[in-house]
């Protein structure tokens, strides 16, 4: 195994298996299916995250709060002189 790895390290990136691998990647007949397969889950989840961003902004039942969370000054308040 070590001899194989050493041989690979010495000869690559121009050894025949690597050239064959590059050719296989370049000639991938189902490139777009593979791109779709890798990308699609992330696209779906990005849409879900966008929905969560909006849903979380809904006021719900959280109008009032208690002292252990960070208070803020209302935007409608006039600025301090």
């Amino acid at each position: 195994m070590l001899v194989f790895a050493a041989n690979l390290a010495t000869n690559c990136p121009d050894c025949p298996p690597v050239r064959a691998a590059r050719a296989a990647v370049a000639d991938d007949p189902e490139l777009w299916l593979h791109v779709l397969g890798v990308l699609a889950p992330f696209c779906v989840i990005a849409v879900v995250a966008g929905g969560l961003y909006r849903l979380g902004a809904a006021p719900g039942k959280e109008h009032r709060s208690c002292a252990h969370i960070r208070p803020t000054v209302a935007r409608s308040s006039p600025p301090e002189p």
Partner: protein
Amino acid sequence: MRTYPTNSGPLIAAGTVMGVGLGGFVDGILLHQVLQWHNMLSSRVPPVDLVAMKFNMMWDGMFHVLTWLMTVVGLALLWRAGRRDDVPWSGTVFVGSLVLGWGLFNFVEGVIDHQILGLHHVHPGPDQLAWDVGFLASGLVFALIGVALIRTGRRAARP
């Protein structure tokens, strides 16, 4: 007049996106590399020789590029959420969002890549369907735990 932060959306979205990225890293590092159960395209191009292995490694790399990008986007969203006064800063909500994101990743990736496109299976072999269903179930369980934690965190912010 004093008001209190009530807009959990930015924190939940940040945690979810980051959870997707980190959950993807668990899949890629643990299942692809450490355990070597599958690779990104191992059901279509089985890694039986060096050429096929390198082909799969290239697509594993693409997968890791996307998980890295999701993690970075999640971090940027978290940074922006932290600078907003209307976002309640809750560790429970954030951890719940991370778990929700991880669960969503397992479920959505399982449905699309394992079941619909058949690019790979969790643990190929005679019991691969059981492993795939278990992966989907883990996604649902994580998502439910995440939602429960988010609800708990939001409830704690009420008077």
